[in-house]
């Protein structure tokens, strides 16, 4: 049974629907992520789960019991705030033990749990320190420990990595995954960073304008976005305007304007003649020097193009290629040859192709 059930929840602020008829069900033990641009309603949804706010329509159920009217302190749900929200007048130990004290546990119980929890987040030596004496990563761990110490049913995390620098964020991502696996508590994670979402989650709900666009595991979200918003928001993607030529017998033929036909992975419910976009990830595009031995004729979808520009990123180089029909697409190539920033020069004619099962057709 789902641990959290969100049923047709709507929350309005004046005329704006911050959360618009959202239904979700989150399974026990999941690392679930709400992903979307700022203002998409993900934080509002989190506040509804925490109990800081109540929905205008719809209902939330925790372990099958309705949450309506239950104040935040009575919900077995804790939040890790973006600003960490540590109590500045309390030491690390007192911050972490706060939920136990509020619940009226005795000193012996508190001591035992505190010791375990401090070890869990590697803060045993910082117990007597105050929040202002800690680094960003340490504050983060105190906030996590405080939220986990009395084993809530759900831990909500509101962009907890937003305030950390890139290196530390990567390290904390690793710690979060390990921590969640160890404690087995369901995490609901809010972020606007697709990279965090892909790296951490079991499942992702992509939100936009208060609505949920797609709920899926990271590979599906990335590889098979359901619509243009999801495709665009997650990573970079090439969008080619196409018309459906044939959508039957387990194959999909698309006509790319001014270029020719391509074969794509079949999808249900498409009609011959309808228009849409063909979405293709840059790393799915293969590039070879034109006319050389490395041309890629084994790929059904292959065309000629010209290198317009490139962007050297260290590990990879992104090439901007102009196809014969004038459409620009991006191709991402790993810099596997030591010391080389690029394989092609601007102006080079190249052979461009991709597999028939790469990319996805999106309706407009």
């Amino acid at each position, binding site marked *: 049974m789902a641990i959290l059930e969100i049923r047709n929840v709507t929350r309005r602020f004046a005329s704006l629907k911050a959360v618009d008829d959202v239904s979700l069900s989150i399974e026990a033990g999941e690392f679930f992520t709400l992903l979307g641009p700022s203002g998409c309603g993900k934080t509002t949804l989190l506040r509804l789960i925490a109990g800081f706010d109540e929905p205008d329509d719809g209902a939330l159920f925790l372990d099958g019991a309705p949450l309506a009217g239950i104040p*935040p302190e009575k919900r077995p*749900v804790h*939040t890790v*705030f973006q600003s960490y929200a540590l*109590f500045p007048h309390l030491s690390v130990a007192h911050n972490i033990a*706060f*939920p136990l004290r*509020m619940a009226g546990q005795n000193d012996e119980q508190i001591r035992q749990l505190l010791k375990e929890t401090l070890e869990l987040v590697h803060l045993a030596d910082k117990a007597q320190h105050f929040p202002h004496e800690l680094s960003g990563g340490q504050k983060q761990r105190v906030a996590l420990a*405080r939220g986990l110490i009395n084993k809530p049913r759900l831990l909500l995390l509101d962009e907890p990595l937003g305030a950390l620098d890139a290196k530390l964020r990567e390290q904390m991502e690793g710690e979060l995954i390990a921590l969640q696996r160890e404690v087995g508590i369901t995490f609901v994670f809010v972020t606007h960073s697709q990279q965090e979402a892909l790296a951490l989650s079991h499942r992702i709900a992509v939100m936009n304008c208060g609505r949920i666009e797609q709920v899926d595991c990271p590979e599906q979200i990335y590889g098979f976005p359901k619509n243009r918003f999801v495709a665009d928001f997650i990573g970079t993607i090439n969008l080619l305007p196409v018309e459906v030529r044939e959508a039957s017998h387990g194959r999909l033929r698309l006509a790319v304007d001014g270029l020719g036909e391509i074969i794509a992975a079949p999808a249900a419910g498409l009609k011959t003649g309808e228009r849409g976009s063909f979405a293709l990830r840059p790393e799915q595009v293969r590039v070879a020097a034109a006319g050389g031995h490395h041309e890629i004729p084994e790929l059904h979808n292959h065309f000629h193009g010209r290198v317009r520009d490139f962007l050297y990123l260290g590990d990879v180089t992104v090439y901007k290629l102009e196809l014969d029909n004038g459409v620009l697409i991006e191709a991402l190539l790993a810099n596997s040859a030591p010391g080389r920033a690029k394989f092609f020069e601007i102006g080079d004619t190249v052979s461009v192709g991709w597999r028939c099962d790469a990319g996805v057709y999106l309706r407009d």
Partner: protein
Amino acid sequence: MKHRTPWLWGAALAVYAFLYLPLAVVVIFSFNDSQLNAQWVGFTTRWYAKLFADGEMLHAAANSLAIALTAASVATVLGTMAGIAMQRWPTGVLRALPGLVLTPVAMPEILLGVSLLLFFREVLDLTLGLVSILVAHITFSIGFVAIIVRARLAGMDESIFEAARDLGASPWQTFRCVTLPLIAPGILAGFLMSFTLSIDDFVITFFVAGVGVTTLPLQIYSMIKVAVSPEVNAVSTLLMALTLTLIFIASRLAPDALKVKP
């Protein structure tokens, strides 16, 4: 700012002299062994001895202390609540409501004195005395406490109060375990400010005191109507020392509220 011109230094000195010389004179002459505030004769502490033997003066001082302690206590409780309300309440018309407690801070004292007198006499038909002084002092102190407490709250991350609720604290537990400890320095500073304002107040007290009850400032005023005796210098010096100490402590406790912004 290395090359400050000498005349700028001179001007600054003149201003400070203007501000502090009169106070220094009072302090110096309180130790002068002469009945007249004219010429330095020799050092003595007999004016202080005389002060502490003066029954009327001691009675007025006791009144002032009792009023200041009570008024400051009540104003601190009410002002703290107003300060929290001002910080928490939504914007717009509703925010103006707790904001109204600030008005007496900006109101001319004479106006406040007259209006309180009229209110006590004509509306409430109250016999002027300790109670009317107390109510008046509470009225003008609440605003100061509210300002200090709100400034303390304004510098804080709002989400810590939500975090407390989220982690299982009831609204009352949140107040007791999180809000109160965090604003405590502001509350104490507000108390000290109110105490100082009350013990020093002359104008409003003058209007609402009625006959029979006197406070230290009223007593000093009635004494200088005759002549500024060295005894007045002595009591003024003591009052000054007390006030400055309290304000110093208050400014250390709530630097964000009492700091003069550049």
